[in-house]
C-alpha cells in the first residue's frame, strides 16, 4: 500500500469536520474522493499534504508511519498536491516555476541551461512537448498551467498526487488533456487522490471511490461495481431531523420576476419565473452559477444577454441601488463581508438600506420607530439596539439583515445560503420568516447547499449546472434527484 490514512479526525474551533476517516491509495491507482460541500474532502486532502495536522489518526507511507508539520515535509516525502487555484508566478517562465526555490546552480549561479533541459525532459515524460520551458507561465492557458503544476510536483519525485477539483477551471476540451495526463501518471505507478464533484470524471478515471459525508467515512467502493445512482444514494442518505414550515397551499400568483434566456459570463440562457407567494429553491454545486444568478438579478454583475421582466414589464437592472428601488432584496451568502457593517449598531445596520436609498430629514423619528417594530418582529436578541452587530450571534446578525430588507417592503427576495453557520433555533425562525414573506405575497428565491433545507423549504427547485438550468423539480423531491441533476449523474 502506497499511502494509508487511518482514523483521521480534525476539529476547527470545536466543530468536528473529520471523524475517524480512513482510506488507502495503491501505486498506480486513481482513487476518487466524493461528497457534498462540507463533507470534509478538502480538509482530508490538506491533512494528507501536510497543510493541516490531524487531531487523531495515523498516516502511513509505504507502510512506515509519517507525520508532516508543513507541506514542505509532505513534498519531500513524495506527496504533491495540485490545488484548484494554481500557485504559479505568472511573470516567471515555466522552468523557473518548476524549479522555484531549488534552481540548479553552477559555480553559485543559476544554471539556466540545465534548468531548461530538465524541465523539457519532465514535460516530455508526460507527453507535453508542446510547452516551452521558456514560456511565461501567465501566458499559458489554464490547462497548460495545470500541467506545469503537475510537472512541478513530479520534479519533486512525487509518488502520490492529490488533485483537488482539477477540472473546476477547465473548459470541456481541456478536460481531455487532463484525462490523458492522469492515465500517463498512472502508468508511472503514481497514486492519485482525485477529489471531484463531477461524477462523470470519477467514473471515467477512478478505480475506487471513497464517499465522505458530514466528516465521516460512508464507504469505499470499487468503481466497476457501482453506478452513479448508487453513489449518489451513498452521498446524500440521511435522516430529516428538522421540521420546515408548511408549504404554500394557495396556487402561486402572477410572475413577479421572469428571466428569458438571460445570461452573462457565468450564466447561459437562464429561463426562470418567480411567482408571488412561492419559494423557489436554487440547487447546484459550488460554482454552478447559483450566486451569480442572484447577483445578476440584483444588478451586481448584470445580465448581458436575454431579458428580465418585473411584474410583466421589461427591466434592465443597472445597479444594486436600482434593484432595491425596484423592490428586490438580496441577503448575501457572506454576512460579514457583504452584509453587515460590523462596527455599527443593530439599529444603524437595520436602517442602512432605508437611509441609503431614501434619505430623509422629515419623519426620521417615525422611521426609527418602524425599524424597532421590525427588529422586534424578527426577534433579534441583543443587549440593545445600540450594540454593535459584531457581538451578535450569526442567527441574530441574519435577523438584523432581514429587518433591513423588510423595511424596504420588497416584492422579490433573494436569499443566498440564508442559514449558513446559524444555530438550529435561529434557523427555524429564519425558515418561518421566509415562508411568512412568501405567504404575504412576496416572490422568494432561495439558494442553499444544504439539501434538507432546499427540499424542505422550496415549493419547486431549479437545479443549475455549469451556469445552465439542469432541470426543475416539484416540491419535496428525493435528494437523489437534486444531486443527480447537480452532478449530471442522471444524464
Amino acid at each position, binding site marked *: 500500500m502506497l499511502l494509508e490514512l487511518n482514523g483521521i479526525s480534525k476539529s476547527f474551533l470545536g466543530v468536528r469536520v473529520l471523524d475517524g476517516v480512513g482510506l488507502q491509495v495503491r501505486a498506480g491507482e486513481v482513487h476518487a474522493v466524493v461528497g457534498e460541500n462540507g463533507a470534509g474532502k478538502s480538509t482530508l486532502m490538506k491533512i494528507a499534504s501536510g497543510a493541516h495536522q490531524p487531531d487523531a489518526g495515523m498516516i502511513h507511507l509505504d507502510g512506515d508511519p509519517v507525520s508532516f508539520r508543513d507541506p514542505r515535509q509532505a513534498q519531500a516525502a513524495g506527496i504533491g498536491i495540485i490545488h484548484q487555484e494554481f500557485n504559479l508566478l505568472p511573470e516567471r517562465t515555466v522552468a523557473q516555476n518548476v524549479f522555484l526555490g531549488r534552481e540548479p546552480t553552477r559555480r553559485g549561479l543559476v544554471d539556466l541551461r540545465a534548468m531548461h533541459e530538465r524541465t523539457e525532459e519532465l514535460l516530455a515524460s508526460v507527453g507535453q512537448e508542446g510547452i516551452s520551458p521558456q514560456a511565461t507561465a501567465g501566458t499559458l492557458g489554464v490547462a497548460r498551467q495545470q500541467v506545469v503544476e503537475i510537472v512541478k510536483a513530479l520534479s519533486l519525485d512525487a509518488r502520490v498526487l492529490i488533485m483537488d477539483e482539477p477540472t473546476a477551471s477547465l473548459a470541456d476540451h481541456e478536460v481531455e488533456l487532463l484525462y490523458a495526463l492522469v492515465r500517463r501518471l498512472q502508468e508511472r505507478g503514481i497514486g492519485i487522490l482525485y477529489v471531484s464533484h463531477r461524477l462523470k470524471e470519477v467514473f471515467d478515471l477512478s478505480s475506487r471511490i471513497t464517499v465522505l459525508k458530514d466528516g465521516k467515512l460512508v464507504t469505499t467502493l470499487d468503481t466497476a461495481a457501482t453506478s452513479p445512482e448508487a453513489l449518489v444514494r451513498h452521498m446524500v442518505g440521511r435522516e430529516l431531523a428538522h421540521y420546515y414550515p408548511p408549504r404554500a397551499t394557495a396556487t402561486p400568483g402572477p410572475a413577479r420576476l421572469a428571466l428569458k434566456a438571460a445570461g452573462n459570463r457565468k450564466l447561459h440562457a437562464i429561463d426562470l419565473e418567480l411567482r408571488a407567494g412561492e419559494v423557489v429553491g436554487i440547487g447546484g454545486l459550488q460554482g454552478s452559477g447559483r450566486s451569480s444568478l442572484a447577483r445578476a438579478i440584483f444588478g451586481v454583475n448584470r445580465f448581458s444577454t436575454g431579458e428580465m421582466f418585473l411584474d410583466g414589464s421589461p427591466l434592465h437592472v443597472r445597479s444594486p441601488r436600482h434593484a432595491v428601488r425596484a423592490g428586490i432584496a*438580496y441577503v448575501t451568502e457572506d454576512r460579514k463581508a457583504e452584509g*453587515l*457593517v460590523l462596527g455599527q449598531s443593530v439599529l*444603524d445596520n437595520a436602517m*442602512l438600506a432605508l437611509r441609503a436609498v431614501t434619505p430623509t430629514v422629515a419623519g426620521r423619528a417615525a422611521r426609527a420607530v418602524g425599524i424597532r417594530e421590525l427588529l*422586534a418582529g424578527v426577534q433579534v436578541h441583543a443587549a*440593545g*439596539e*445600540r450594540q454593535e452587530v459584531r457581538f451578535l450571534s450569526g442567527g441574530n446578525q441574519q435577523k438584523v439583515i432581514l429587518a433591513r430588507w423588510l423595511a424596504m417592503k420588497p416584492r422579490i427576495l433573494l436569499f443566498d445560503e440564508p442559514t449558513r453557520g446559524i444555530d438550529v433555533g435561529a434557523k427555524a425562525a429564519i425558515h418561518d420568516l421566509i415562508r411568512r414573506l412568501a405567504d404575504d405575497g412576496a416572490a422568494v428565491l432561495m439558494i442553499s447547499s444544504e439539501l434538507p433545507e432546499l427540499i424542505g423549504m422550496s415549493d419547486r427547485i431549479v437545479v443549475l449546472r455549469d451556469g445552465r438550468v439542469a432541470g426543475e423539480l416539484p416540491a419535496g423531491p428525493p435528494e437523489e434527484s437534486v444531486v443527480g441533476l447537480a452532478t449530471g449523474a442522471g444524464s
Partner: protein
Amino acid sequence: MTAEATLPSRWRFGRLTGIGPILALLAVLLMVIAIRQPSFYDPPSLLAFLKRAAPLVILAAGQYFVIVAGDFDLSVGSLVTAEVVIAARLIDGDPAMTWPVVALMIGFGLMVGLANGLITTALRVPSFITTLGMYLILVGAVYTWTGGSPRGALTEEFRLLGRRGIEGIPFLQQLPYAVLVLAGIATIAVVLMRSDFGKVLLAVGGNPRAAALSGARVNLMRVIAFLISGLFAAVAAVLLGGFGGVSFQVGAGLEFTAITAVVLGGVVLGGGRGSVIGAMLGAVTLEVLFTLLNLFGVSGALKSAVQGLIIIAAVAIGRTRRN
C-alpha cells in the same frame, strides 16, 4: 428587539467610550495648564486660544469626513497655502476684490475636493496617492504662478475674519469672528453626521461592499467627503490668511497635523469608526498640547516630532484596544 433589549444606561456608556479617552486627555492637559498658567482661563485669553485653534479644528473636521469614509486627504495643507497665495495676488490690496476673492477661494476648495474625489473613485487611484499628487501639483503650480515668492497683499477687510471679532461684549471683551465661523462649521459637521448622510457615510467606510449592496451610492458618498474636506480647507485658509499672513509656509504640514488630530480623537484610519466631535476635540487637544510645550519652553522645532509620536501611539493604542 426582544423584551430585555433596551438598556439605556449601557448604550449611553457605549457612546461615551468613543470620545471618552480624548476627553480625559484634554482634561489632564487643561489641568496642567491651570497649574502652570491660570491666566489661560481668563475669558479673553481662552477666546484667543480658540481663535488660534479654529483653523486646525476646521481642517480636522473636514479630514474626518474623508477618513471615516475610508480615504485620506493629504492635499489640504498645500491647498491652504495655495488659497492664501492666490488670494493675496488677486486682491492685491484692493478692498473691492475682497468678497469676490473669498467666494473664489471657496469655489477653488470645492474644485480641488471634486478632483480628488473623482480621481479616487472613477480612476480607482488610492486616495493616499491621489491627494499626495494633488499636494505636489498645488505646491508646484503656486510656486510657478508666483515666480517663487508670494506677491500682492490681502486687504484689511479680508484679515478681519481671522483677526478681529465683535467688540464690546461684556466680560468677553471681544468675540472673534474665527470662533463664530468655527461654531458654524462644527454645527454643520455634527448635523451632517447625525443625518442619514452621516450614517451611510460611516457604513461606506466600515464596509463598502455591504453599503453598495444595500443601495448606497458608495462613490458619490466618497466624492462628497472630499468636497467637504476641500470646502473646510478653504474656510480654514480664509482664517489663516487673516491670522498669519501671506507666505508659502502658511499651510505647510497642516495635512499631517489634521490627520494626527483626527486619529487622536479616536477615529480609526481605514474608515467606519469614530465621531466628528472626537476629531474636533482631538484638534483642540493638540493645540492645548502645543500651548503647553510652549509654556514649558520646549522648542517649537520639536513640534513635528511630538506629532509623529502622537499619531503612532494613537493608532497603536486604537489597534490593541480593538483586538
